[in-house]
């Protein structure tokens, strides 16, 4: 079943056209990767999907509903969770508080808030959920650390946690391993695989430069160049595609 459908999306920044009639269909449960050289329009496409920016033409459908005009928070409520290239966490709050606000936001949005309206402290169920997320992200020892003092990798992990706290149907990851060391990359790749494993039913849409990460996770890949989709298919199909090799992969065999 198709969970996200993009139909002929156009987007310009001023006079610069960055997306030319992009189509895409993402099926439920799959891990879908968007790759392409810098400036190909990956991040822009991402933003159009999540509702950060609008598009001039075309439409975005989510769960069979047209959400082209919906702002980001509505799409998030409908089940899109997103992370950013440079991890964005609430720096003045501790790791724990970051997750508390995320869990509370979800409960509030779904109308299932369990703390009474006058309560100052979060409910114990919320705290339990927060702690289970912290443990899952191996951040439990840093629960009381202000997010601004976390390492780069930990921030990325925490941000993933914030997103997961929203219990999304689709996890949208914008370069989840950007700026990470190879070992961290392996860790995050495994974490994502673990989260989106079969049976979880979670759909993952990601952009990424590291082919190792892509080839380790993706079910299907879409390749973009200069605002256009130039190829789409399984890992093998993409590897074999001569156009893709020329514009993007180069002699990746050397150092992938």
């Amino acid at each position: 079943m198709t969970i996200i459908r993009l139909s002929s999306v156009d987007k310009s920044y001023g006079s610069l056209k960055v997306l030319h009639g992009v189509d895409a269909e993402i099926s439920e449960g799959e891990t879908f990767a968007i790759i392409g050289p810098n400036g190909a329009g990956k991040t822009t496409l991402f933003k159009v999907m999540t509702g950060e920016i609008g598009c001039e033409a075309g439409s975005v459908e989510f769960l069979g509903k047209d959400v082209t005009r919906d702002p980001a928070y509505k799409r998030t409520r409908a089940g899109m969770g997103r992370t950013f290239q440079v991890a964005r966490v609430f720096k003045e709050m501790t790791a724990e508080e970051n997750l508390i606000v995320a869990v509370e936001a979800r409960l509030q949005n779904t109308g299932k808030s369990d703390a009474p309206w006058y309560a100052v402290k979060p409910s114990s169920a919320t705290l339990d959920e927060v702690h289970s997320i912290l443990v899952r992200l191996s951040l439990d020892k840093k629960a009381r650390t202000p997010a601004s003092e976390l390492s780069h990798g930990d921030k990325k992990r925490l941000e993933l946690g914030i997103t997961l706290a929203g219990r999304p149907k689709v996890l949208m990851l914008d370069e989840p391993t950007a700026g990470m060391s190879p070992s961290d990359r392996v860790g995050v790749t495994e974490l994502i695989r673990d989260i989106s494993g079969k049976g979880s039913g979670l759909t993952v849409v990601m952009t990424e430069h590291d082919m190792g990460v892509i080839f380790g996770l993706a079910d299907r890949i879409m390749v973009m160049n200069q605002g256009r989709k130039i190829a789409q298919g399984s890992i093998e199909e993409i590897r074999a595609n001569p156009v893709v090799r020329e514009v993007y992969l180069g002699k990746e065999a050397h150092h992938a």
Partner: protein
Amino acid sequence: MNRLSTYLLVALAAILLLLPLWANSGLVFLTGTTIIVAVFALSWNLLFGYAGLASFGSGGLFSIGAYTMAVMLRQGYEGQFLLLIVLATLAGGVVAFAIGFVALRRSTGIFLAILTLALAELLRITLAKIHWLGAEDGIPSIVRPTFSIGFATVDLSRGNSYYWFVCIACALLVGLTWWIAHGRFGRTLRTIRLDVERAAFMGVDTHRYRLVAFTISGAIAACAGALFAPWAQIVTPDIGNMMRSTQPILFTLLGGASSFWGPLIGAFLFSAIEFSTRTLVGIQEIITGGILLAVVLMFPTGVAGAWNALIAGLSARPEPAKAAPALQPVKE
């Protein structure tokens, strides 16, 4: 909050309550004024420190509250005083909601600041033209009301009773604000200040939250204004002028925006400076300006920030002092 600060707070509250028993009536009047504008500053910081919105026009809302109260008392509704406070609060909330509804979707940051400044000036100019409201000279001789609360009659017109009423009302307002700031709503608001986009991607309707915060802040500001009218016993259009609007900003930054108590500390500090230099006429500006500069240069995180750092320094093991980097590091 650490224990020492709590003790200090309790001690300060006690001093404030007992003040009329020993202090000069001018000092009592100034303290009452300070308590009210401190709550006013607190309402501003609810918007600034929690929702990340800076308004330069909060004086307008203060004056709406004050005028509503003054007019209703003049019309002879003093028996319903408590109701009048609620009414004035609502009036501020409604106006703030209307402004927020139109403005917040389109402008934030400095533009919102200037927009609110313009609206407050417009209000001031308008008030100064309405004869029925006394034009520039405002509404004088406002009574301190006597009213009944069912089983007892409260007479606020005598001696220092209105002072204590102000103390109690402001304590309630501080409590209310504390509760708003520290509960779920406050936590969510903080995420909006820290990263509005990230908050939206948690499914938070950031526009709505900001609008609610703007409304609450405006309502509390108007409530402070409503308490102020019988306190000063006169309201004039200048009650909402630019200086009034900069008051909470000054107090908040002086005290420390990152602390809930910052605006209160700033308000009392500022009043203390003004009172202790009251006889140095002619050089008031230089003294006030100089002290402000000194505070900003010495405690760039506000007095509350410096205090917290001091407490942290006392309780933690000493750490070598480190200079701030010469240029903003962009990425670590």
